[in-house]
């Protein structure tokens, strides 16, 4: 007898394989899989399915799921299936491979800095005709958040979950020392130094901190009158005018007296947040996305303020936009989802209120709910008001690549105290080389 155990094993195996196929619903390709709890039950025939990829995890992911459920409940003929695709970067990678293999979604969230790269490959749908068809004007949106929407004369994305860097202040600490919230680099230097507590050779308290990110140096370059790229995107715009050297010299100066705590690269966001919550640092440059979490974690008087100015007030924006993919076969339904999310009262407004991202249409800002929230939490209004000075000067297809070079320059200066002019010079040459490609 040929052994029975082998047959038995094969049967088990066959079943497990069947189960494996069943896991995704033995669905035809293109049909919505439906066993996931966050996903609404899979569509009946006749319903148009819109695949929507996003990068929101945790609480914000739950708020986004709720938004999708509201949409599905109010639309009988459209079924939006929202799927979390990892971090912003991971979503970009997934989109690249999915577009190449024809398995891309209809609608996707896209971190603003990557939009041009995709727009340049002509895989994003021009939304202009859809906007016109629905009687919406680009002016209905908050101007400061539209910086990453138009490329090559095409409107390829609309703001969704947008944030901006802001100054978070431990007001209690400043009051104790009789200090005012700084509004200029000069004042910032004074206040930050006044906050420093040093015992022996160890700092017990620092003045100000910021996560390890290009966002903050870029903000400060603009404040010092520079731009990240020059006007025709052939080189950097903060070398000849001295803005870059001024910014890094300023930061190194603060760092040398403990006025600035510059965190290690790994997990820097969490490190600076917990230092701020613990009162180990009095002020922090950090995303507006942290306001909600910080408010519930601190036990001191916590306020937000504009990033201090040098020559001018300036701040970049961050977060992600929503885009429609050209490859979508359900563009009408996809647009209905985008339109509803962007414009309707029960659309993204609720998501914005819950998550703390910035309101992105004028209608939203004027809404009672936002006004109420701002009356109750002025910290969030500050974030919106600062958008008046929003400026994004690091827009280029090659930005993701140049970003890595800029990180290297930041590391050389902030961690290894390399010579500032020499480092910036190297960075400038490298950038010009990449931009010339």
């Amino acid at each position, binding site marked *: 007898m040929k*052994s029975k155990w082998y047959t038995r094993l094969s049967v088990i195996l066959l079943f497990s394989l069947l189960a494996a*196929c069943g*896991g995704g619903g033995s669905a035809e390709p293109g049909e919505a899989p439906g066993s996931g*709890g966050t996903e609404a039950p899979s569509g009946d025939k006749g319903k148009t399915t819109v695949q929507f990829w996003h990068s929101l*995890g*945790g*609480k*914000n992911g739950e708020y986004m799921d709720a938004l999708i459920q509201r949409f599905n409940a109010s639309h009988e003929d459209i079924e939006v299936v929202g799927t979390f695709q990892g971090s912003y970067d991971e979503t970009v*990678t997934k989109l690249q491979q999915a577009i190449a293999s024809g398995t891309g979604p209809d609608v996707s969230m896209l971190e603003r800095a990557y939009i041009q790269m995709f727009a340049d490959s002509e895989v994003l749908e021009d939304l202009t005709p859809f906007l016109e068809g629905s009687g919406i004007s680009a002016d209905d949106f908050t101007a400061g958040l539209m910086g990453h929407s138009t490329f090559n004369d095409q409107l390829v994305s609309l703001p969704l979950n947008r944030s901006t860097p802001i100054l978070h202040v431990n007001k209690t600490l400043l009051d104790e020392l009789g200090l005012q919230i700084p509004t200029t680099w000069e004042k910032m230097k004074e206040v930050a130094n006044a906050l420093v507590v040093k015992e022996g050779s160890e700092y017990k308290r620092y003045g100000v901190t910021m996560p390890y990110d290009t966002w903050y140096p870029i903000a400060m370059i603009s404040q010092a009158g520079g731009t990240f790229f020059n006007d025709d995107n052939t080189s950097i715009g903060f070398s000849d005018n001295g803005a870059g050297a001024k910014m890094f010299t300023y930061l190194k100066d603060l760092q040398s007296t403990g006025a600035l705590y510059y965190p290690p690269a790994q997990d820097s966001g*969490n490190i600076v947040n917990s230092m701020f919550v613990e009162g180990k640092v009095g002020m922090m440059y950090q995303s507006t996305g942290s306001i909600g979490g910080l408010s519930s974690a601190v036990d001191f008087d916590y306020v937000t303020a504009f990033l201090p100015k040098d020559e001018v007030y300036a701040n970049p924006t961050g977060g992600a936009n929503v885009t429609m993919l050209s490859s979508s076969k359900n563009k009408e339904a996809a647009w209905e989802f985008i339109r509803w999310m962007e414009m309707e009262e029960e659309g993204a407004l609720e998501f914005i209120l819950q998550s703390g991202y910035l309101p992105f249409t004028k209608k939203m800002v004027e809404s009672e709910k936002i006004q109420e929230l701002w009356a109750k939490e002025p910290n969030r209004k500050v974030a919106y008001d600062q958008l008046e000075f929003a400026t994004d000067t690091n827009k280029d297809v090659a930005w993701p690549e140049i970003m890595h070079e800029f990180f290297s320059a930041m590391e050389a200066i902030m961690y290894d105290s390399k010579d500032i002019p020499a480092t910036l010079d190297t960075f400038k040459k490298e950038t010009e080389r990449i931009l010339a490609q």
Partner: protein
Amino acid sequence: MKTFDLKIVWTALGYLLKAAVLMIFIFPFLWMISTSLQTFRETMTFPPTWIPASPQWGNFAEAMNAGPFLTYFRNSVVVTGSIIVLQFLIMIPAAYAFAKYKFRGKTLLFGMILLAFMIPGQVTFIPVYLMMADWGLVKTLLPQIIPFVSNAFGIFLLRQYFMQIPEEIIEAARLDNASEFKIIRKIMIPMSKPALATIALFSFVSHWNDYFWPLVMTDSAAVRPLTLGIAMLRETEGISNWHIIMAGNVILVVPILLVYLFCSKHIVKAFVYSGIK
């Protein structure tokens, strides 16, 4: 007398070193468990909280309710289970053939297996994904299973193990008219249990914990495993709820601990015998 003292010193030193190494491995683990039972406020404090004021068992429920965790769990079980079963079905006969048969092209074939063992998944994932998309399998669990049905490391390890089994035993069995399958089942498998347990555990841990491959191969929650579900607990921006994430991680790790407890006896043996220490 002198040498006796020295012996005690060495033994003590040995224990000390072992304890130190143990701490290195166990510390992150304790950290995870401790954090999973803290409140949000406690996770934010510095210096860190070690023992939560009152253990927050609700964190586990909150983690489980944050997504379709039952689906994730089932997917993890089905994917990992299928991979292991399939691997063994292919690995055992393959290792047997490579260890005990003489046939033309054996060296070449074995070389190819070693080659497969050396090429990392990061090199092949795009072509594999395109292939799976082409076959319309992206919405099933198969892209997470098929690429792993042949376990090159397992074939290699098991072959070495089989080679140590004396030819005489197999010859004797053949004289008694045992079929090749019977030889595998009655001789090879029982005599290499430790190696099989080791391979099963390695395979289980690496596929149960795999994040990269399922992230690349899946587009929807319905076919995703636990690891992706837990990654979803992290905030993309802003402040992450570490207590909830760690509760998710504890849930992820428990099955591994169970499997380890189950086959730890065999594994220690395998390490001793096979000389990988």
